[in-house]
């Protein structure tokens, strides 16, 4: 036994022991989740392709701007398994749907609505109009205006951003072998989007063909944010599953 007197007279030691004691409380809740099968659901097409994929270069930049502007302060991205939420927002969020999110944007504060399934719910025009001047389409809204999103997007460092996420385990590819692996996991079209050496080219191409800000000529921050918003919650095609397919994972 450690002599209690020693701990009480030695503040440094007490601090360390207190931290250990408290972290046990956290660890017993978190650590088992890494081992329990089905914490992160497996969501695949019948052909074995993963439905949930990492963000494309453009979407990733949009996500970074979403974080920069602090959207998470008012918007959650987590539909809880309650009837009212599923009626309003759609199928409850799966853990798998945010497995490539670092950090995740679940949130617990809803001044605005949940955005976990806002993708494809509104047109690009609506998103642009609403981001520039929310009250022009939703008179009772308290969301701030974000007119500066129409400024040009800095595309110079998108490869670095992807490389940083790669270190956390997001399967962006650098080598041919990784690329081929992505083709197997996500299909050829998605694999192309995940290849870091092509990041900038892919980003510009997606912005110009997608016309997210209504203008193909230039690549703006608006392109990135709208591309991100339009993909939220759309990766899993729930029509391929029964309404209770994901019950078994809990």
């Amino acid at each position, binding site marked *: 036994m450690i002599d209690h007197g020693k701990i009480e007279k030695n503040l440094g030691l007490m601090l360390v022991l207190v931290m250990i004691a408290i972290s046990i409380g956290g660890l017993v809740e978190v650590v088992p989740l890494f081992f*329990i099968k089905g914490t992160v659901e497996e969501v695949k097409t019948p052909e074995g392709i993963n439905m949930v994929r990492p963000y494309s270069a453009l979407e990733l930049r949009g996500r970074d701007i979403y974080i920069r502007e602090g959207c998470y302060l008012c918007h959650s991205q987590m539909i*809880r*398994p309650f009837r009212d939420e599923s009626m309003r927002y759609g199928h409850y969020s799966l853990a798998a749907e945010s497995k490539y999110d670092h950090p995740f944007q679940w949130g617990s504060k809803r001044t605005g609505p949940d955005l976990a399934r806002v993708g494809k719910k509104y047109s690009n025009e*609506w998103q642009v109009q609403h981001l520039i001047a929310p009250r022009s389409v939703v008179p009772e809204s308290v969301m701030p205006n974000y007119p500066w999103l129409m400024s040009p997007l800095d595309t110079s460092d998108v490869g670095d951003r992807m490389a940083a996420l790669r270190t956390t385990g997001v399967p962006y590819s650098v080598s041919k072998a990784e690329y081929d692996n992505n083709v197997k996991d996500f299909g050829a079209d998605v694999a192309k989007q995940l290849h870091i050496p092509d990041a900038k080219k892919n980003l510009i191409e997606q912005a110009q063909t997608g016309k997210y800000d209504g203008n193909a000529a230039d690549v703006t921050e608006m392109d990135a944010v709208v591309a991100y918003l339009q993909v939220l919650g759309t990766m899993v095609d729930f*029509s391929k599953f029964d309404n209770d397919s994901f019950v*078994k994972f*809990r």
Partner: protein
Amino acid sequence: MSQGNTQSQNAQTTGHVWDGDLEECTNPLPAWWLWAFYFTIIFSITYWVMYPAWPVGKGFTTGTSTITYKNDKGVEKTTHWSTRALLAQDLQQAREKQKPYFDKVAAMPFEAIAKDPQMSNFVASAGKVLFSDNCAACHMSGAQGKLAFAPNLVDDDWIYGGTYDKIQATITGGRHGIMPAKGGADLNDGEIDSLANYVLSLSGSQADAAKATVGNELFHGKGACFSCHGADGKGNQDIGAANLTDKIWLWADVKAGGPADKNVAAVKAVITSGLNKGVMPAWTGRLSADQIKLLTVYVHDVLGGGSKK
């Protein structure tokens, strides 16, 4: 210390004595507190037994409590307690409560739903919720629409048609408004000016008569506007070409009785840039067929702008 410690003489002490007379009492915990504490222990053990609690290897103790529900396909399942199963049960019960109504929505023709007082009540209340959640963002909360954005659904003017079938098709598949810039022809500014005057004259708005005459020829000739908007300018709902002969404007900010030059400029702007917007998303994945049918009746009859066959 003779005054303060009269009570401590009755209480138990730890036996430690400092400075000769400083003792530490060990008063027993209040009984209610102690029993409440024991109760929390019993509660947590009961909880561990009944609900998912302890991780074991790659799984966890699932508990004795179960939930039985029927999924969308009517397959009955029993599983250990979880919030997801609870939701499935909750949705099933809600579905069963609404089933008599939604069965009728699916089975009855549009007109019959609108005429049945009980069903139209259901459409009015359920439709209002669906409309607010899904449609109001663009068409606004009163369905009054928004200039240069989304059409008014309350008036009797329709771009893609206001019959039940057309409204249902619009909600199901979505829409995308397209008008080629300058009619797809190489119109110069003067010609566009003439065309704008002609278009305004179609609805009896103030316009330059001489220019309108030139515009008339361009409309039916070089500009080829007639191929979508019709020779009479009344539009074509099959392809979403607007009726130009009424005074309802969606894309050009034309004000009845407003200054003619501003009205001309507004129409010119639309002709010059064309349209590749007016996108309405398809709702087929997000809403069920019954919900779309219900919304159709809501838009047609509760909002009241629907047109007869």
